[in-house]
């Protein structure tokens, strides 16, 4: 069921907030206010279940009270969460600067909402959430090279560093996910959760190789593909010249004539990306810049929790 509070986190509302920091805070506060019904809780303090003692269990976990009442040995089991390292990779290539969502503010200037805006907002929100839960959060902004790296921290002031890094404008260069991933992996030795936010307008084989290396390194990965709605619909009707944001090439054609093939191409690309993610056991999400961010945050939190449980069970 959709809540009314979700409307506050729709790009239409977020785009009106001039301050990026304010935007992210509002997003998280709104998100948190809606979490009271969540079945998920903090791990270190919550009792989970009892199980019968087997040889080899740590005697410190025996529930002596139960033993005193029933003369049976049960081990007390807790849902205990260790701190998580989250590294967010944000694609800042020129193609991320595309966006068609425009918020028409009465009496004010029009606000343009690009894929990069959407991506950085999501990144800020994730990092805020993670920091709230004492997770360490790192940030990598990349295009064809690494543009900005923020080391992992869990301190309360770290979020401002992250926000500051995300406030940078996207580059004019092309995307190189493989390079960004490689450079990032070289800096982390322990196991981290990587959130890769990009439009993934890159060679699928390169993307596949990059994900394979992440998998090989034992990291967890969530792929968030940000696409503008126009990129998904391509409902231009007038023949116009199209200029490549990344390379500057241009072609002129009738978009109606090319639309079908274009949609097939981009759909194929997205499906291919989804398949790659699935093959490596990672999550993939396609995000429309015209849609609200809250659902994707909720979904991410759910994923994180379940993944944490899975990891604990293992």
């Amino acid at each position: 069921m959709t809540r009314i509070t979700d409307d506050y986190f729709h790009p239409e509302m977020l785009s009106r907030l001039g301050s990026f920091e304010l935007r992210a805070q509002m997003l998280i506060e709104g998100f948190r206010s809606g979490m009271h019904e969540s079945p998920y809780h903090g791990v270190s303090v919550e009792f989970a279940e009892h199980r019968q003692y087997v040889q080899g269990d740590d005697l410190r976990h025996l529930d002596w009270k139960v033993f005193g009442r029933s003369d049976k040995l049960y081990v007390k089991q807790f849902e205990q969460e260790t701190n998580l390292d989250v590294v967010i990779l944000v694609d800042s290539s020129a193609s991320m600067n595309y966006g068609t969502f425009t918020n028409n503010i009465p009496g004010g200037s029009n606000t343009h909402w690009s894929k990069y805006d959407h991506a950085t907002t999501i990144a800020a929100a994730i990092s805020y959430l993670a920091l709230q839960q004492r997770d360490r959060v790192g940030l990598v902004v990349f295009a064809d090279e690494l543009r900005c790296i923020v080391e992992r921290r869990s301190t309360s002031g770290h979020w401002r560093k992250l926000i500051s890094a995300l406030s940078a404008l996207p580059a004019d260069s092309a995307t190189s996910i493989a390079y960004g991933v490689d450079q990032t992996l070289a800096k982390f030795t322990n196991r981290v959760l990587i959130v890769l936010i990009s439009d993934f307008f890159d060679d699928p084989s390169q993307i596949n190789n990059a994900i394979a290396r992440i998998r090989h390194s034992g990291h967890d990965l969530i792929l968030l593909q940000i696409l503008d709605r126009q990129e998904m619909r391509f409902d231009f009707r007038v023949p116009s010249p199209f200029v490549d944001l990344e390379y500057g090439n241009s072609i002129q054609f009738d978009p109606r004539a090319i639309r079908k093939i274009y949609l097939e191409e981009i759909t194929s690309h997205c499906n291919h990306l989804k398949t790659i993610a699935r093959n490596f056991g990672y999550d993939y999400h396609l995000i429309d810049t015209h849609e609200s961010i809250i659902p994707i945050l909720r979904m991410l939190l759910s994923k994180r929790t379940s993944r944490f449980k899975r990891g604990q069970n293992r």
Partner: protein
Amino acid sequence: MTILHSQLAIMGTLAILIPILIHFLFRRRQQPIQWGAMRFLFAAYNKVHKRTRIEYIVLLLLRCAILLLVGLTLGRVMLQDNSISRFLNDFGILSTVSNSGAGSNLVVIIIDNSMCSEVKYKNTVTETTRAVDYSNYPTSFVRHMIQAKSILQTVAPESHVAIITTAQPSKLAYINNYAELSSAEKIFDRIHSTHAPPDIIGAIENLKQVIDGSIKENNTGSVYLLSDFLIGSVNTEHSLVSLKESQYYEQLTFYALNPQTTPVNNVQIASVEPTRHTSVYNSVLGSGQLQIQLRRFGNLQDKQHSTIRVQSSYTLLDNDITHTKIDERYIIENTVIWERGQTEIESILQINNQWIKHGIRDYTAWIESDTLDSDNYYYFDLNILEHINVKIIDQQETINDSRYIDTFSGGSWIERALMPDDTGLGDFIIEYGNPIGFDEVDLVDVDVLIVSRPDLLDNASWASIGKWVKRGHFLWLMPPGSKSTAQWTGDVNQALGLSWVWPLEGISVKHSLDFKETHDKIVNTEIDYNKASGNTLLTMISNDIDDLLKAVDLYYIYAPIDGVNTDSIILSTAVSNNDKITDTLNQMPLLIDTTHDSGSGYVVYLGIAADLNWSTLPTSPLMVALTQEIVRQGLCETHKSRIFHPGTNIVSSYPKESHSIDIDGIDFIQITYNNDANTFSTVTPPDTSGLYNVRDTNGILLESVAVNVYADSGNTNICSANILNSWLNSVAEWTWVDNFSNIDDLLLESNHSNVNSEISTILMYILGILIIIETFFARHFSHASISQVEGHIGELTSSSTRINRTQ
């Protein structure tokens, strides 16, 4: 292939530019779009751009073809008869044009626009006999034009159309590759009924020319002859050119309107003949009469009256209160009664010029309006002089520095004859000219020059006189009595343009003379008054001349000769019969004239000298009558109004110096000069009657020319069917029809199955098919695929969580 409405077809063709322009306009004005997912666009573009381009071209061609076909369909494209159209026609695809003219490659319309085509009538006899206002009735010509236009409505494109008029001279308008009605209508607008006589002969010759030039093998033609075939509109007395020997005669069909079976009542002025074309102001003898001839056609059973009116074009003098006036103009009138069966009537009207200012005066005679108005008018002019200035050249004697004329000289006798009462009053002012050094200055203001002593003039004087005569003046010559004529020079003949030679001496006449008119009297005297054809010099005294001649004795005649050798005088051939006015029984010319044409003067030669022998008064009164009549009528000859007819070129014989002549009232007229005949003539003859003034380049009036209708052209009696059939069938076999309004049926009966077919129907089929194809392509070609691939969006976004916002 021909297009009926070419303008629509042209618009359709030009409409092809619309999609092309749209294509280029859309390409030009769009702003570039910054795009991120370019790799997919490139991939898609590489896959589809060739196909898209082809689709574009196909669609563009389809749309252009549709617009073109719309234009051609609206323009009514016609296929001429050929194997394709026949093939299509067999399958019922073509819509054959259901009219007739369309079946012919050549359509010739011969339309009667001669004077009789202006007849207005009803088909009931009784109505035409009463006084009916005919002004509201359409003329025969108008009805024929309607018929002609209905024929043109049916003419197929690419046919050849010829329109021939029958008024003299027959004219031909030819339209090669007839495309639309408007082009023919422009020609029709220029055709009008005329006052000219019929020229069916010329029309048939024009028809033959058209057929010879237009009809080819496998072509067909239709000829339509539109006339009422009244007697006045045909020339049945002349034979026509036969077309039956024409190579393609069998390919032609000839239609003619049935001739009128009801005669049309019509009264006309056949002629108006003034007895004096030139007269003297306020003179009894100078007034003259008008002999007006009326003719009647049609129903002659009833009594009828006609009122003849004659009106001058000038305004009356202020003090004239005695004459009838219409619009302040002088009117004389007379009413005549037609008896049953009477066809001709003559009316005499007295012209009283007592109140008329002198000068050339135009007159119109007319009768009341009837079924045919064109012949109700007759135009003429009269020349009114204040006096007749006569100059006599005779021998003069000088006594005490004063010159005198011998009392018994020829000049004296002439003066006495012109002014017999010695009062000095009369129509003539007489002046003597000195033969010594006589030149052009002496001829200023002279109306008539009488030379009684030609032997005294030298060559220079004759040259001056010749020039004066050729400017349209009257010269009266006579021999110098018994005196020798040997001094006369041959240059005289050349100077005066005479065809005969002066006699050297008189020939003795041994018998008494008695003038007779040859046409009504037995010639038993030695001098025969031979009234030459058309010569009116002595007409006024012809009834009295016998009595006048009784007391006259002549002894010598100085007859013109054709040689100078008196031993071999051949008198009979010296003067042509046309020039003779009187001659003796042995054919010696006595009174001759030389030049009749106005503008080149008039010379009269009297073969006897004015002397005591025959001119003594009062015992010999002939001298007075003869002299005065020669002078008066001789002057009339030089100022005679010349009559032309509509359809005939006006010819003027004024000297070459005035070679640029404007003719009033004919604005389109062109003048040509004939060097051989020394005449001017109009290139295009006038086609309406009226008075036309010929002026020189300085605007000075040279002469007045009257153009009057041919009386026979107004004959509105019906033509005998047998005569008409036989006359027209000498040209071709005609099919007679009542009218051409049912021309479709008429031509369906024709054996000519050559068809022109309209392919609009098949074009519409093709157009429909093309529209369906275009619609299909437009929906299914890649450029129109937005609605078709909407599903991809749903599929693509299905993996993302979508928010359905509720408000």
